[in-house]
């Protein structure tokens, strides 16, 4: 396979790039003998084949994967906050997750955008139907967070697959967001001196800035494959969306954890925590990137 052929097919390009990155990262870890870094890397050996495998299988498989992961991640959120003891609210959020992904799959942008409205209205009916007031504001509010972050925002990962411009958008935002998280951690460990937020005490100014610079550089390097028709200012904005948006998502869910008094959302991903701990950045970067690209550069069904 030639370089040009690879460059014209984002899925092949990113699959090869991912394998190379993982191999290089494994080599570096073996060389540096960083304690505790093998466990999260081993988890990536499972996550990446599942995610890329679903993309190779096609839009249906990818959409099903996004829906299942969204439901399981919301379950974590509901268990952490205690919302899970309110099955009616939980069922409605699950319904919103399924509906969002179905309409992302069929390319009905109008319905995709309308579902959060209908879901919130349905949630508003729950206290009325149950004829209860105690705790209802809390459950209602947490359910709205569920609809927005787990149904609407995460379903943009399904929606990005529907772009007529190919899989470059989706692969870019998915892999760069995850790389941004990893780089913040690695740079923070290596060079971090100054903490910048009490919400997530492990975040350092050095880690965040260096990760941001690396992501922007990588965005320019892969722009010809991921989004070839986007001008340099748009490429810069895409890089900023990933690196800033990723931190916003991370801190938003860190805030939930601090309020609930837990360390992680779960244990399903050794070395990472729960699914929400891995998806929190994507919850912000996926919709922010999709709407930025869709509004300025098109490519999505309307």
């Amino acid at each position, binding site marked *: 396979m030639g370089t040009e052929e690879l460059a014209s097919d984002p899925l092949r390009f990113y699959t090869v790039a991912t394998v190379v990155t993982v191999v290089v990262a494994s080599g570096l870890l073996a060389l540096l003998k960083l304690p505790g870094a093998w466990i999260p890397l081993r988890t990536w050996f499972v996550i990446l084949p599942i995610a890329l495998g679903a993309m190779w299988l096609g839009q249906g498989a990818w959409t099903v994967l996004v829906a299942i992961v969204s439901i399981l991640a919301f*379950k974590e959120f509901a268990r*952490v906050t*205690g919302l899970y*003891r309110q099955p009616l609210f939980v069922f409605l959020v699950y319904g919103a997750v399924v509906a969002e992904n179905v309409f992302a799959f069929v390319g009905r942008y109008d319905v995709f955008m309308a579902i959060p409205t209908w879901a919130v209205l349905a949630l508003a009916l729950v206290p009325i139907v149950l004829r209860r007031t105690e705790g209802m504001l*809390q459950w209602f509010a947490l359910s709205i967070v569920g609809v927005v972050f787990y149904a609407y925002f995460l379903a943009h990962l399904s929606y990005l697959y529907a772009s007529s411009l190919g899989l470059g958008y989706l692969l870019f935002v998915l892999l760069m967001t995850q790389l941004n998280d990893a780089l913040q951690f690695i740079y923070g460990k290596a060079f971090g001196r100054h903490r910048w937020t009490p919400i997530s005490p492990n975040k350092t100014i050095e880690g965040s800035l260096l990760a941001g610079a690396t992501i922007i550089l990588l965005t320019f390097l892969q722009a010809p494959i991921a989004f070839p028709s986007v001008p340099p200012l748009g490429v810069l904005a895409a890089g900023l969306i990933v690196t800033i948006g990723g931190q916003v998502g991370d801190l938003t869910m860190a805030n939930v954890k601090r*309020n*609930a008094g837990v360390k992680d959302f779960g*244990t399903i991903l050794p070395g990472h925590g729960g699914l929400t701990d891995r998806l929190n950045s994507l919850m912000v970067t996926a919709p922010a990137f999709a709407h930025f690209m869709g509004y300025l550069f098109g490519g999505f069904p309307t």
Partner: protein
Amino acid sequence: MSGTRFEYEPFPDLDLPLAARLGQFPRQPDLFLDTARALGRRAAAGFFRLQFRIEVVGAAPDLPRLALMPNHQSHLDTMAILAALPERYRRRITVLAARDYFFERAPGALAANLFGQAVAFDRGAELAELRRWARLLPEIREGWFLLYPSGSRKRLEPHAGLAGVLARSGWPVVPVALAGTADAWPVGHALWRPFRRIRVTFGEPLADATARRLPAELLAFWEAHGRLDRIAEGDAP
């Protein structure tokens, strides 16, 4: 400013791996697992009835809480009792199963929990576990437990243990005798032998089942109603 602060109440099992979560009692509400368990026990009972000729003698009493105490000779015993009961009773049952055998790994824990309604009993720390159950049992108003007082398929004689704790806590004890399961899936065999005859006999609740007399009364019932195949020592666990 007045108002109510949000109060978060995370589930207590957030940090537990799946196998431990499946084995815990009391169970935490879980829409997925509860649904899977409802489907799993129906599927398992239906499959069991297709595989074996099951004969039910007597009936379990319709009490809000009770403890079923059968003899234990085969892996089929739990499924035989679940298949012998109507769904309205089956759904109430919690089976106590050895943590070291069923709940060390997720696949085994899933099978035991979803098809067999099992939770974990820690045989390795029996005294502490008995104390925990002794505190827990008086608070439980509804539910059926199924446990094997002999503790193992290789043991015939019941011992008081958790059975005694249940009796002391005022739980009605219903003796159950199983016949034919040892022949249908003998200890040490990799697979069961289909189409065998299995008989499940439900006794009357033991009146005044004191912990001291319980083993003898259970043994008498099992000997009267079950074909008790003594398992040769040295067979597979």
